[in-house]
Every structure is written in structure tokens, then in C-alpha cells.
């Protein structure tokens, strides 16, 4: 295959990526857009087997290459197919991390290959790829651990943390300078190590609720890494694809931050200024009003308007079908039912929409935060299923708490508040919720699905 044809096909794949992103931005064309992106990536991958810069075909190490792709497929496809909807956010984080790791490895190999003959700009691009790729890799692993709850979901802040982070960053930059001037192998490996450490330190102080924003940011980072890798390898396709993801990822990160009412800066560096939360929990022993499924059914039965606020607990319990059953039952009794969807309910923006769409909840019943908030004073019952942080009034009343400033669903305006919760444990952000102790709040403890099933049968019996 001639260089011209090779580049032309690469350009075609680049255009397909643009159309893919465009398609993914609209509900009607989203699926087609994704398939188009997959087609572009497949074409680009097949093409590379028919062109070699040294003119020798088939490619050297062909058997190894195909074997490695097979291994990747064996790991990646079942993981993507089998993952529960609840675990999807951390899987996306993990996929993003390995992409960053791949880009860093590619740059390292090309650097080893070029040795002393590398031009300064290529070395700078290599250094950039290694730093950002490694940061994205280790940072994504930490977000994965947080989301999987293999480690604490609270911000990890330690004394002098900000100095350690600043020091690591300075050391990384200094090491980058060392690589550019010495062109040695050791400095590059030190650089990779420092960048990995920086990625970990960078994500540790981020609080649970802000993790989705960080995933999106790291995604944009990986895109830029791929673009820099494209420069090192002289591949137009990688430059286009990487830059597209970098740019669209940055915009998406900003949109997400806006949806949460956070500044990007505040999200990333907020934890440095926030004081460690007083989690000694004065509230643990305070009385709460715990009810039975029958109490909840009665409250719902005599309501005229019910707003259901789903959260991560709904996803964990896979209770989306049961909640739909409940909503249908209430609608049949002539009760006005709406779902109040907080933009970041769950572990990712849009998580609840995806989950409820799976249960065929009519789209008109899903109300976004701005729509539903003014209706709470006319709402008789706010039924909160496995959500906590997104309705926590501390976001309005307690300056300095990790979620302060985040817009919340004003459920306290409703006549009655019902929480379906597994336990008194605080939410993902680890903050006590005053609303739980409010006299108009009723708590029903247990797994969301089990509780909802009981409420449904109690309601039918009334």
C-alpha cells in the first residue's frame, strides 16, 4: 500500500471519529455514532497491517502482534459485556487508564528506538506522552479503586499533602528537563515512575462525588497523550483522533462540572483547602423515625403528587423494574408521579437515566433538577431511593463541607420525605445528612429492591 493511500484511509477514519462524536451528542443518533467510531477504529487498525514505513510486509513480529490483540480482546470484550450497569463507571475509568498506559508505553518504545537520533521536538512530545499517559494510568486506577469501594471514597488528605503533590510535580518537570538534555534511558524511566506517583497523589484528595469529573478530565488527558504519540510516530490519524478526544473531553468535563455547579478548579483543588470533615458523627445516636413498608404505602396512597428521587442504591439493588412497578401502581390510582433526576445521581452523569431507561420508564416522567425543584412545595411525598448526597441540605448550609455549593434536589420542601436506605451510613461523599433526623422524614431500612417490593404489595393490599 502506498503512503498516500495509507494516509488517505487514516484521514477517512479521522472523519468517521468526528461523525461518531457528533452522533453521540444526540439521543437519536448516539448508537449509530458509536458504531461509526468502532468502524473507523477497525478500518484504521486493519490498514496498519498493509503499510510499513520500511516497505517490508508482512509486518515484523506479526504473530506476536496478532497474539497480543487476541489477548486484549479476550480480556476486554467479556469485561465490557458482563459488567453490571452499576459497575460501568469504574470500567470506563479502567479502560481510560489502560489507554493512557498504552500511549506512554508506545512513546517509551519509540524513544528507546530513536536513541540519540531523536530530534528535540520529538523528545519533548515523548516526555509529554510519558508524563500525561502515566498520570492518566495511575490516576484512573485510583478512581477505579474509589468507585469499586476497594478504598475509601472520601477525600484522602494528609498533613503537608499539598507540598508533597507540588514537590512531585516539580520533580516530574525537573526530570523532564533531564530527559530532554541527556537523552538517556534511565531519566525516562524515572520520569515514568514520578508521573505514576503524581497521578495517584492528584486523584487521592478528590472526594467521591467529584470522581466522575476527574474520569472525564483524565479521558481528555489520554486524548492529548495519544495526539502527542501521533506526533512522535508521524501519524496524522493519531493526531486527529487524540486531539478530538482531548478537546471534546475538555468541553464535556466543563459541562459536567457545570451540571454539578462546581468550578473545575474547585473540584480538583478544593480538597486541599477543605478541612478534614468532622465525622465523629454527633448524629449517630440521635433518634430517627423509622417506618414499616405499610407506613410508607399509606403515605404514598394518600398523596396527590409523588416525586421519586433515585440514587446509587437503586442501581446497586437493581431495583429499576420494581420502582417502575410502584410508579405505575401510583399512576393507576391517579397520583401524579415524577422522577427527580439529579445530574450526578449515581456514580456518573446520566447514570439514572440509563438505568430507568432500561426499565422502560416513560421518558416524560423523568424531570431534570431545574424542572422538578420548583414543584417540591406542591409535592406531598418525596421518595428517596438509595440517594443521599444529592438531597443533602449540607450542600447549602455547611460551608467547607466537600459538597458545599453543589445544587441539590430540594426534597425538604415536600410535605413528607421517605428515605429507602440500607443503613444510616453516610453517602458516597461521607457527609452526615441532617434531613434524616427531620420530623417529617420516614426511613425504611433495607435493600432498595426488597423494600420496594414490600411497599408495592402493601399498596396493593390497601
Amino acid at each position: 500500500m502506498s503512503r498516500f493511500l495509507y494516509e488517505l484511509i487514516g484521514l477517512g477514519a479521522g472523519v468517521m471519529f468526528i461523525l461518531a462524536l457528533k452522533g453521540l451528542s444526540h439521543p437519536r443518533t448516539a448508537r449509530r455514532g458509536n458504531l461509526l467510531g468502532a468502524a473507523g477504529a477497525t478500518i484504521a487498525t486493519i490498514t496498519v497491517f498493509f503499510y510499513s514505513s520500511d516497505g517490508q510486509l508482512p509486518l515484523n513480529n506479526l504473530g506476536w502482534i496478532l497474539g497480543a490483540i487476541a489477548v486484549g480482546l479476550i480480556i476486554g470484550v467479556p469485561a465490557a459485556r458482563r459488567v453490571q450497569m452499576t459497575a460501568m463507571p469504574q470500567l470506563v475509568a479502567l479502560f481510560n487508564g489502560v489507554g493512557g498506559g498504552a500511549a506512554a508505553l508506545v512513546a517509551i518504545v519509540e524513544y528507546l528506538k530513536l536513541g540519540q537520533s531523536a530530534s528535540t521536538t520529538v523528545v519533548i512530545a515523548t516526555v509529554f506522552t510519558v508524563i500525561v499517559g502515566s498520570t492518566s494510568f495511575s490516576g484512573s486506577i485510583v478512581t477505579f479503586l474509589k468507585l469499586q469501594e476497594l478504598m475509601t471514597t472520601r477525600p484522602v488528605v494528609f498533613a503537608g499533602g499539598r507540598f508533597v503533590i507540588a514537590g512531585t510535580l516539580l520533580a516530574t518537570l525537573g526530570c523532564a528537563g533531564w530527559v530532554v538534555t541527556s537523552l538517556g534511558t534511565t531519566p525516562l524511566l524515572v520520569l515514568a515512575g514520578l508521573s505514576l506517583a503524581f497521578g495517584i497523589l492528584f486523584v487521592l484528595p478528590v472526594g467521591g462525588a467529584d470522581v466522575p469529573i476527574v474520569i472525564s478530565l483524565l479521558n481528555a488527558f489520554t486524548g492529548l497523550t495519544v495526539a502527542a504519540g501521533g506526533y512522535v510516530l508521524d501519524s496524522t490519524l493519531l493526531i486527529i483522533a487524540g486531539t478530538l478526544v482531548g478537546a471534546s473531553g475538555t468541553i464535556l468535563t466543563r459541562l459536567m462540572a457545570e451540571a454539578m455547579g462546581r468550578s473545575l478548579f474547585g473540584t480538583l483543588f478544593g480538597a486541599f483547602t477543605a478541612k478534614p470533615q468532622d465525622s465523629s458523627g454527633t448524629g449517630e445516636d440521635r433518634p430517627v423515625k423509622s417506618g414499616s413498608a405499610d407506613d410508607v404505602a399509606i403515605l404514598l396512597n394518600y398523596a396527590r403528587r409523588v416525586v421519586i428521587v433515585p440514587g446509587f442504591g437503586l442501581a446497586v439493588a437493581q431495583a429499576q423494574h420494581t420502582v417502575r412497578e410502584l410508579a405505575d401502581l401510583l399512576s393507576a390510582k391517579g397520583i401524579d408521579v415524577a422522577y427527580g433526576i439529579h445530574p450526578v445521581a449515581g456514580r456518573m452523569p446520566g447514570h439514572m437515566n440509563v438505568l430507568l431507561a432500561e426499565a422502560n420508564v416513560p421518558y416524560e416522567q423523568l424531570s431534570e433538577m431545574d424542572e422538578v425543584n420548583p414543584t417540591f412545595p406542591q409535592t406531598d411525598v418525596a421518595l428517596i431511593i438509595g440517594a443521599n448526597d444529592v438531597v443533602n441540605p449540607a450542600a447549602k448550609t455547611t460551608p467547607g463541607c466537600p459538597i458545599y455549593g453543589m445544587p441539590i434536589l430540594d426534597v425538604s420542601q415536600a410535605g413528607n420525605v421517605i428515605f429507602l436506605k440500607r443503613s444510616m451510613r453516610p453517602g458516597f461523599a461521607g457527609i452526615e445528612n441532617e434531613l434524616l433526623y427531620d420530623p417529617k422524614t420516614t426511613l425504611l431500612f433495607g435493600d432498595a429492591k426488597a423494600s420496594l417490593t414490600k411497599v408495592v404489595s402493601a399498596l396493593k393490599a390497601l
Partner: protein
Amino acid sequence: MEAMAIISIFTLSIFVGFEVVSKVSSTLHTPLMSGANAIHGVILVGAIIVADHSDNSLELGLSLAAIVLATINMVGGFVVTDRMLEMFKGKGAKNKGSGDK
């Protein structure tokens, strides 16, 4: 490649990237992030190129690791995005209405 050509491609790609996602409802934030995530898996192409160049076992080992990781990123990414979007299937028209708000 000529420096100016690269700078042009880079700059134009930034604006295209900004432009294509500037208006998107929060419903689609997650699938869009996941889809964009899969697209950068195309670093697989770069990993295959360096594996072709490799002439010692260290280089080859690192490139093969890069191929495995990039394949997971790319294929896994597209599959998982498709699974998310599958759930919106058949409700496209209604979703459209809300997406325009």
C-alpha cells in the same frame, strides 16, 4: 511531517472537537465520555507500528503490552458504550424531545 501542517491539523481538530460536543444533554454525558474514551483506543495503531519497529526483546515486550492495553481500551470501550446506548433503544423520538431542552 512539516511542522506547519501538524500545527494546522492540531488546531483545526481542537475546534472541531469543541464544536461537535458543545450542546449535549446530561443524559448523554456518560455514553459520550465512554465513546470518546474508546476512540483514543486507536493508539492501538501506534502500538502496532512500534511493535513492527521493535528489534530487541525489551522493545517488543513493551510494545506487546501496549497492544494488549490499547485493544482493551478500544474494543472494550466501544462494546460498553453500545451496551449503555442499547438501553435507550426504541425511545429515540421521545429522548430527542427532551435532549433539545
